[in-house]
């Protein structure tokens, strides 16, 4: 047995911790004053809230949060510190971090350092001690919007800070996946015997996704966001995967065109999140920006083929516009909405009926979040198995 993580020694009583002031300014002028958390300085992004009560490390390192300032609705953050196993990518991607009560002492047998240190080390500007519930309600009522966090030398008059926020770019129309995706292809080997090869187009992929595939005997070739059809078929894939990622799907014309070719070739296809939106667009559906998005790990999604409800992890600000009540005709045959969020009837999954392709808007790889939707990776395997059988017959 290993010894528990060493505890900090007792501070002298009344060693008043320095509370460094910080300000959060929304583009509509609402302002919250708190204390600096993580790095000091200034940062800008789209303000969004996440309702997960666990999994801050996974959230921070999820590339889909690129250029977003994440407000945690759970008030006590950082309690389990930071370890080296749970990140979903090599760095923190959030543009800024907003919490109410950060931990002073992390406690977990796997913890290596505190979250505060980690944020500071990676230069992530945050704010703590504000009424995160009030901010969340504001975003819920007014919608996601631009925000700035300022501390230390970046502090100035509020009007000046607001002006800086208004100069920051908006999320709508932002083409971001190339900024977060790998620039070089790499391979995640299958765990155990290899059964399939999958070309996974990285639009901001989370580490857990190739791992979930690898566990099912898939060798995953992770390819850059701007990969071409030729690049994909160069790895002789049994299936093609399009990952999650940040930004507006309306900007992803290149990926849409690539996917259309995959559909035409009837290669088994699976998409998650951004991948779902690309499938939607590839089939001719529209996409739109949600007022304040789905970000959390408690969202009820119904699988319309079984009627069963799964509790799922979400992180999306855009969604596909497709009819819920009928099968649609598309250039690639019939398609239908396979999954729907029971909270608000947002499209959460698409299923092609004439080509081997499907996608979900949410995160079956979880991390963070419940594992209820892990069966979707099995469906992908089934699709590839069936495709092999067809090819063989």
């Amino acid at each position: 047995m290993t010894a528990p993580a060493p505890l900090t020694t007792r501070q002298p009583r009344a060693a008043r911790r320095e509370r460094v002031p910080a300000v959060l300014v929304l583009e509509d002028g609402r302002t919250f004053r708190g204390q600096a958390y993580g790095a000091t300085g200034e940062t800008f992004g789209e303000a969004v809230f996440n309702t997960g009560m666990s999994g801050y490390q996974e959230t921070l390192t999820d590339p889909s949060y690129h250029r977003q300032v994440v407000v945690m609705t759970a008030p006590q953050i950082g309690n389990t510190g930071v370890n080296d196993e749970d990140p979903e990518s090599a760095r923190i991607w959030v543009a800024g971090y907003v919490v109410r009560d950060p931990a002073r002492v992390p406690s977990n047998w796997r913890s290596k350092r505190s979250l505060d240190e980690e944020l500071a080390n990676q230069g992530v500007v945050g704010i703590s001690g504000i009424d995160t519930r009030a901010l969340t309600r504001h975003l819920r009522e007014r919608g996601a919007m631009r925000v700035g966090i300022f501390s230390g030398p970046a502090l100035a008059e509020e009007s000046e800070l607001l002006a800086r926020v208004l100069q920051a770019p908006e999320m709508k129309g932002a083409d971001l996946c190339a900024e977060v995706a790998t620039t070089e292809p790499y391979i995640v080997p299958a765990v155990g015997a290899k059964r399939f090869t999958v070309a996974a187009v990285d639009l901001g992929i989370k580490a857990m996704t190739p791992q979930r595939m690898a566990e099912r005997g898939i060798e995953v070739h992770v390819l850059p966001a701007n990969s071409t059809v030729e690049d994909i078929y160069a790895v002789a894939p049994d299936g093609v995967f399009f990952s999650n990622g940040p930004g507006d799907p309306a900007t992803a014309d290149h990926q849409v065109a690539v996917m259309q070719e995959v559909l035409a070739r009837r290669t088994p296809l699976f998409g998650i999140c951004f991948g779902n939106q690309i499938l939607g667009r590839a089939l001719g559906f529209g996409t739109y920006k949600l007022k304040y998005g789905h970000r959390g790990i408690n969202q009820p999604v119904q699988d319309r083929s079984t009627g069963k409800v799964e509790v799922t992890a979400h992180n999306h600000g855009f969604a596909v516009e497709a009819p819920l009540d009928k099968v649609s005709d598309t250039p690639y045959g019939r398609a239908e909405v396979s999954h729907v969020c029971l909270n608000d009837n947002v499209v959460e999954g698409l299923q092609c009926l004439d080509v081997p392709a499907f996608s979900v808007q949410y995160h079956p790889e979880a991390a963070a979040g419940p594992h209820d939707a892990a069966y979707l990776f099995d469906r992908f395997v089934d699709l590839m198995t069936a495709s092999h059988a067809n090819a063989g017959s």
Partner: protein
Amino acid sequence: MPKRTDIKSVLVIGSGPIVIGQAAEFDYSGTQACRVLRAEGLRVILVNSNPATIMTDPEIADATYVEPITPDFVEKIIAKERPDVLLPTLGGQTALNTAISLHENGTLAKYGVELIGANVEAIHKGEDRQLFKGVVEAVNAKIGHGESARSVICHTMDEIMAGVDTLGGYPVVVRPSFTMGGAGSGFAHDEEDLRRIAGQGLALSPTTEVLLEESILGWKEYELELMRDRNDNVVVVCSIENFDPMGVHTGDSITVAPAMTLTDREYQTLRDIGIAIIREVGVDTGGCNIQFAINPDDGRIIVIEMNPRVSRSSALASKATGFPIAKIAAKLAVGYTLDEIPNDITEKTPASFEPALDYVVVKVPRFAFEKFPSADATLTTTMKSVGEAMAMGRNFPEALNKALRSLEKKGSQFSWIGEIGDKDALLAKAAVPTDGRINTVMEAIRAGATQQEVFESTKIDPWFVDQLFLLDEIAAEVAEADRLDPELLRHAKRHGFSDQQIGEIRGLKPDVVREVRHALGIRPVFKTVDTCAAEFAANTPYFYSSYDEESEVAPRTKPAVIILGSGPNRIGQGIEFDYSCVHASFALAEAGYETVMVNCNPETVSTDYDTSDRLYFEPLTLEDVLEIVHAETLAGPLAGVIVQLGGQTPLGLAQALKDNGVPIVGTQPEAIDLAEERGAFGRVLRDAGLPAPKHGTAFSFEEAKAIADEIGYPVLARPSYVLGGRGMEIVYDEPSLASYLERHAGLISEHPVLIDRFLDDAVEIDVDALFDGTELYLGGVMEHIEEAGIHSGDSACALPPITLGGYDIKRLRTSTEAIARGVGVRGLINIQFALSGDILYVLEANPRASRTVPFTSKATAVPLAKAAARISLGATIAELRAEGMLPTEGDGGTLPANCPISVKEAVMPWSRFRDIHGRGVDTVLGPEMRSTGEVMGIDTVFGTAYAKAQSGAYGALPTKGKVFVSVANRDKRNLVFPARALVELGFEVLATSGTAEVLQRGGIPSTVVRKHSEGEGPNGERTIVQLIHDGEVDLIINTPYGTGGRLDGYEIRTAAVSRGVPCLTTVQAMGAAVQGIDALTRGDVGVMSLQEHAALINSARK
């Protein structure tokens, strides 16, 4: 999948009397379930012996049986009502065990009743430890996670001794099978411990089975609350983390929701295991609770146990999240699926989700060790707390501080004044879990302990330890600051410091701190419990306070009435007061008011967000209540605050609230004082020409002796200004008086001791009445079965009174009215009288709802608390009669001659406690109240009603076998008649030599048995204690001797408790029992619903 259409009627079993481990949470769950089922159009048949519950209100079910929850009685109800289905998962272990018995004895099959909510196989798999181990193994095979602690099942002491070796030695945990609240569980550190704990465990387990397992003492402890529907959808409603590590029963632990120190990976593993378990066990529809232990060093997860039913934790989880588990469980049981049920709070989203909290919830237990001074106060795996308080805040320190002050107990809050103790001694003390350990930890921190030292001593998770250090640092900042600037004050308030704590640290009065705070505009805001962390708009005003920026209290137009609840359950102030508060809320909502409930007890119906228009889950202290009044005053018109229904807690706040300009409705604080202050009350009595027993007030032994000499022994001695009969004793002679004063020197130091004449052989009478300023409505007259001197809360009583005549009632009415008028009551008053000889003495008067209000209301079919609430707001009794809330004519003093008899019996917690040597605690009743709950028996004659009450409280009275009789000298003359009756009923009488002699002279044959003090006889003749332990005695009558012979009695009574033999400690109870046994022997005892009962009374009234 919509509701099943094949179910037309459902039988719901409640949990019976409040006992430790099974308390008001089942009233909350059961009430929710009954309401839901009725709303679904089903005929709801309910059985519950506990009259103090809301669920047994006649409006809640279609047919309400206040009958004993035994297989026999439930079968009678099934035969009469022929329900289609039985829902057993909402009444705790009592309901589950009864349902299993009814299944096993073929009753359910005979009447074609289907079990819903959980099938028998699932119940066994969840509850039987060996089967459950199999479940965990199967789960591990499927998902690769989860294991059980290494363990062995034992049925004999030999197997137990062998078992220890296979586990690798001591310490080991002993867990008896099929007991509730962990009764009989414990840690054995050596063979002596083991023999004692396991021996008792074998006796307590209905299957004579105990489990020994490896010690996981000091590990982190977690619970998950899960729900599953018939479509196999599963959600985790809540995670709960225990602040106190493994080794303390979760009911006795400080617990926190959501889990604070788990990574997502660890949490999801628990969730995966939990879901796999609920599937493997086969809970088809409904909820379950699963407990886990995690090794803090390496994350190894052990599944401890599961409860395939709603539980105390599920009630807590429901209040903590706003997700009503019992309500949803009832809907699932009749066929709905989670996605078909809307989330009450958002109204727009479905229940098939997992609540997200944006606040922290802390629950703290409330103990009553002061009532059982000989009991061992060490916390173990057997639950010992009698109640709990819950609080919410926007961070852990805020919630913790609020929860600790909600306990409303001296010393429960952190204090930073006074001597700094010895660090090592404090750390050593904190290593043993006890009531108040968290305060010891804080003292150790003050004394300079490091975080590492605190962790090593207590194994409390380092994150929690640091939070305590944070509080200490803030306290130091407050102490050392030159001035209390706004920033610092706000910082302290954000961490839950009360004005009183801040004042204490700064040497200021709390009122001054409050005034400064208000002047600086530092006030709490009120946030909503909305299940979704503000992701969706909430329509249910369920609030908690926090020092944050934005308040969510909406404006309103209707006048509001704020009802102050009764706080955590404790002995002397329990669910009965919650009953009255809930009734007030219902009645006032109907009368057009906006009702606002304030309470901090998560077990209750009052803290169900469905009960009142607005719910504030807040501590009941002056500071917290004033802030709520402020917020509600800003929200709209305020008609007033009701303080007379929640027991002493709100009553104690009345004057201070009034002084701060808060309108109190009903009986005014000055009137309350008048009744409580002895001198003033004496004047009221004198003015009305009413006698009180002779009494006096003493500050010293000399004064006390002089008073006692004058009024004559025995005397009743008690410290003034204490509640629930605390420290009250009957003193028989001068040496006892001296020793009494010595023992209570602490209580007496500030206030004098009161010496009353003790009325030997008096009949004690309780009266509940309503007074509106002109008219008196006598709610009910209860005649106690035990003589005066036994606390009224511990005494059995009958209504209508069985021996009082019309003349007595008339006198009681006149006296009650004179007192109500003299004191100035507007609402309820409870008066205790003693009838000695022909003199009617007034013992005490309480101008508030009493413990007996629900009993009286049910026995007379009149909603007294509702009427009291209306009178408080200005309605007159005449108006309420005209409305039909009160009978048109007559009252509880003029019940029709054929009115059924209702008997109330108290339920005592003896079996829960052991002294430090592991022996039982004495069971003698006295002037200090110690019961935790009560049951009611109703029948046409007294004997049957008494027998039902006994069955409900302790198990059926025996109708044959051996009765052991040993009574004090003063009781001997009253012994002969009941003893003769027992012989005639076929009992064999055993007696000690002195009692046998008396019996012989009365012509009653008896067998002399050896006293415990005499020891075993030369030929191995067993003593009475041995006979009891050997299971050869069926009924015990043992009245305590004034002074001598105490030890013998103690051994007899504790043996009775450990063997579960009915033991009567007064000769009056013996008389009643004889009538009860006679009734049981003579034949069929029927069942009658409260609705039938009410129809009978009401038709007789017309």
